[in-house]
């Protein structure tokens, strides 16, 4: 559905995007992940035909965005970083105008506007001026605008930026619902967003693609070992020694010590499930098993290790849930 080949964008001597290539299949959600200033917005602006690339090729819905821009744009919906609303128009007037320039047939216009307003839940604000909308509503009207002509491809630049937690969850849910009918690229610098919404991730840093994979594979790829967090009440026994003796365990580190229990991080051989053996060993040696859970390497860590020069020290802290 979307094919990007060797895209490069230079501003004078500054290279914003360098040799970026990726593909997105029909109906897929691709996450575009990178720190601020990595080239996410630039890539998206090139894909939407807002600006031309210095080199390379981009094909959206079967049309080259440089050769046949109008055809490509007809099939693309775009939500820029700031929703492009006219403050002095009401939501309905705004969507009517957008539907006209996006080429929605006059006969379908009313119905289409009604549909998108319900879909993104802004129908209750239909006659309010865009200037008077809250940030969350502005974002949703921006999304309505991108959807109005029922495009094959949706390109969303940081769709959840600046929203409150409830709105973020709603927006993610909405994006997931849309994935069936549309192919979606969304950019973000918030990592959990990618693991929650996207099927595939392109990590971009300093204008270059550093990784393309599924969130799960990325997690697995970075660390071969899987760690377990085990909270044990030692009852006077040497809990660390008991844990080390379990078959398949490659390392035991004390992570936190409390008044009546000790938390351990237990590393095991790759691909081996040691949960049963661990539980058995703790309990049969007279200790109390208070908690046991896999410690997943968070995308944050993957991200940091891929985008920073020196690899960060792996800490035994809990995965960050932002």
């Amino acid at each position, binding site marked *: 559905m979307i094919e990007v080949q060797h895209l490069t*964008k230079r*501003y004078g001597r500054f290279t*914003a995007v360098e040799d970026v290539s990726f593909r997105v299949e029909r109906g897929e959600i691709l996450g575009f992940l990178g720190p601020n200033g990595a080239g996410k917005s*630039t890539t998206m*602006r090139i894909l*939407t*035909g*807002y*600006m*031309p690339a210095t080199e390379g090729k981009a094909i959206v819905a079967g049309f080259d965005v440089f050769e046949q821009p*109008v*055809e490509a*744009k*007809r099939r*693309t919906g*775009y939500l*820029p*970083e*700031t929703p*492009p*609303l*006219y*403050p*002095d*128009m009401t939501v309905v*007037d705004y969507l009517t*105008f*957008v539907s*006209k*320039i*996006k*080429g929605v047939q006059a006969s379908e216009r009313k119905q289409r506007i009604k549909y998108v307003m319900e879909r993104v839940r802004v129908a209750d604000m239909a006659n309010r001026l865009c200037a008077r909308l809250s940030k969350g509503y502005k974002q949703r009207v921006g999304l309505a*605008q991108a959807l109005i002509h029922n495009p094959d491809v949706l390109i969303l630049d940081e769709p959840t930026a600046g929203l409150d937690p409830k709105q973020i969850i709603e927006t993610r849910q909405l994006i997931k619902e849309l994935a069936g009918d549309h192919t979606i690229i969304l950019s973000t610098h918030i990592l959990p967003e990618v693991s929650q919404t996207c099927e595939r991730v392109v990590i971009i840093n300093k204008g270059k693609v550093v990784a393309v994979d599924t969130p799960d594979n990325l997690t697995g790829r970075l660390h071969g070992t899987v760690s377990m967090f085990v909270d044990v009440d030692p009852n006077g026994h040497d809990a660390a020694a008991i844990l080390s003796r379990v078959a398949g365990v490659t390392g035991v580190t004390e992570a936190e010590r409390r008044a009546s229990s000790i938390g351990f991080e237990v590393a095991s051989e790759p691909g081996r499930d040691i949960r049963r053996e661990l539980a058995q060993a703790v309990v049969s040696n007279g200790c109390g098993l208070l908690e046991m859970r896999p410690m997943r390497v968070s995308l944050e860590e993957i991200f940091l290790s891929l985008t920073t020069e020196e690899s960060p020290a792996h800490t035994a802290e809990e995965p960050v849930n932002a």
Partner: protein
Amino acid sequence: MRNVLAIAQKELKSYFASPIAYIVIGLFALLFGYFYAVMLQYFVRAGMNMNPMMGQQALNINQDMLRPVMQNVTILLLFVLPAMTMRTYSEEKRSGTIELLLTSPVTDWEIILGKFIGALSLYGVMLAVTLIHMAVLFVYGQPEWKPIATTYLGLLLLGGSFLSVGLFISTLTTNQIVAYISTFSVFLFLWVISWLGSFSTGFWTDVTAYLSIIEHFDDFSKGVIDTTHVLYYLSLITLGLFLTAKSVDTERWRG
């Protein structure tokens, strides 16, 4: 064409959604009324003092009343028209809505023409208000309609030239004040460019007189449609729109 009209309509609506349209039209109508009233009084006085037996030429309402009014109007346009174009592109760039326009399946030219027609329509509405004053003349006097018609054609062409140049200037900045001042200065320069040639004779006098935007208006107010003047204004309009297109395209490359 449908896209052009959609954008023109949106532009016109946005003028009326902001105070710009009301301020511009209101103040213009007020000042026009003032010029009109003053010149009418002068005309009536002059008419009463005139003695046909002295061999004086009879006063003509088109030449002796309307023409001076319209000359004042052209000066008024110098101040009013930059306000119509100052926000056309600059505001879209500042608020980011330019991203919507440039990523919609419309061409740059459709956007430019839409914006131009939108501004021209507002200008048309502004001129239409003054037709009331013309109607009054027809009720109480016998003015010739032809010079009035050519004057309005001249005003449209002159104003259209200003608007197209203003449109171009508004693509160069995101600040409306900067757009207004720059547009005003360029207009004023185009107005007085003939002064450059007034100290010499021959070639440069002709060139600067030809370039001066106001030299071409006079014939229209006399009731004459000279193709030279029509062509001058149409060329200027085309040049303004062409520069706008170039500027939008360049902006695109620079990002």
